């Protein structure tokens, strides 16, 4: 066999494998990392990408509360959890970033159509991870949404180390914490974990490439954590969640932020 033939065959395999890479997530990671003013075009772009994300969240919520509905554009209609949440919410997102994802965007999407966005620059952009580092799959997409009757806060992070690991952590402090426990879907399959009054840092790790998103929301006074598959079938692994998540750790925010 010639080198050319070997090269062609090896290339065919490589391309087939590379084609399974999720370019939507990658695109959002790139688009979301470019510091720029929020032009209308960019807003549309991010909202469009966010709609894909919100669609995943909506599936969760729809199962939790039949009153939640998904608009054709993928935006949530109605607030499922906001009634128990008082604003403002202080959010910090300590994450590991590559140069490609050196900023996190916290986007507030009021229902009046205007955008209010702030940019969060991670405190630590070095390779040394925080002491409570979360390690998930490359280019993972962690979505955190808070809903309020008049405001939806959506935090999206994405990125990867050169080694292929993204660290996505959320240190959430609510001014009036509604949640007393952490619950993992399906209910009852993992023990309830008490949260500290000031909030919690939530860590999710997985052992399977099919893990893609983590969605943290509140319902009935709990925090609910769910995962979405990145498998080609693109199914929501509600029932299979426990098989994917190998560890779920909740630590008091004081410990998380203080190391």
């Amino acid at each position, binding site marked *: *066999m*010639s*080198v*050319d*033939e*070997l*090269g*062609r*065959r*090896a*290339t065919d*395999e*490589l*391309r087939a*494998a*590379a*084609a399974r*890479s999720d*370019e*939507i997530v*990658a*695109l*959002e*990671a*790139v*688009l979301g*990392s*470019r510091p*720029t*003013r929020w*032009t209308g*075009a*960019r807003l*549309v*772009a*991010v909202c*469009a*990408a966010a709609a894909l994300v919100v669609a995943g969240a909506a599936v969760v919520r729809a199962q939790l509360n039949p009153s939640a509905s998904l608009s054709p554009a993928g935006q949530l209609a109605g607030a499922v959890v906001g009634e128990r949440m008082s604003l403002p919410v202080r959010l910090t997102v300590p994450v590991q970033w*590559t*140069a*490609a*994802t050196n900023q996190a965007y916290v986007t507030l999407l009021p229902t009046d159509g205007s955008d209010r966005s702030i940019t969060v620059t991670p405190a630590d952009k070095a*390779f*040394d*991870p925080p002491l409570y*580092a979360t*390690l998930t*799959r*490359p*280019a993972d997409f962690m979505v955190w949404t808070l809903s309020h009757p008049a405001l939806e806060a959506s935090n999206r992070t994405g990125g*990867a*180390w*050169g*080694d*292929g*690991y993204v660290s996505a952590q959320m240190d959430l402090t609510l001014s009036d914490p509604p949640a007393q426990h952490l619950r993992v879907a399906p209910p009852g399959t993992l023990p309830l974990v008490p949260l500290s009054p000031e909030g919690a840092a939530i860590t999710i790790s997985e052992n399977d*490439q099919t893990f893609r998103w983590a969605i943290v929301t509140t319902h009935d006074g709990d925090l609910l954590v769910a995962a979405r598959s990145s498998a080609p079938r693109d199914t929501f692994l509600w029932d299979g969640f426990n098989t994917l998540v190998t560890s779920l750790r909740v630590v008091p925010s004081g410990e998380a932020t203080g190391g």
Partner: protein
Amino acid sequence: MDLAESPGRAEDPTPAVLPEVITFAAFFRREYHGLVALAWGLTGSREAAEDLAQEALLSLHRRWDQPDYLDNPKAYVRRTCANLSVSWIRRRVAETRALLRVGRPDAEAVELSDEAGSFWAEVRRLPRRQAQVVALFYGYDLTVAEVSETLNMSTGTVKTHLHRARATLAVRMGADAEMEQEEPDVGR
């Protein structure tokens, strides 16, 4: 769904002089998987390849409004990706140290056959420029002229690298170094 228009493109009067007016999102989708394959071949890591492909595209994205870079965005982003890939090993050392500190086991998935895995492993053992040329020539299916344009080197140099790489790979893989695609004209 077309996800994005690059900011400012709509108001930019220069697109008319560009060879092809294309949104960044469309360009991204056209190039992303090829870049992943290119970086994967050069690094041996799917995760790293995805990261490097994004990094290369981000570099272009930051210049998307600058017409100079749009003269040949494909060459720019491929060259960037190839350069990032061959320097990845240096970063890898630092990351490995960090990962060891957090105790994460290295569990890189094996997704290629032995034959393909061996081929790309041998490519990575080649000198840096030879590896880049091979990765672009085979992995990206570029012609010698296109590789030349991408890496900003003469076609003669590309052919020399390709010739030497083929010879080395033939020995290491027990293969025939006979050229089937493009006959190198070494020394031209």
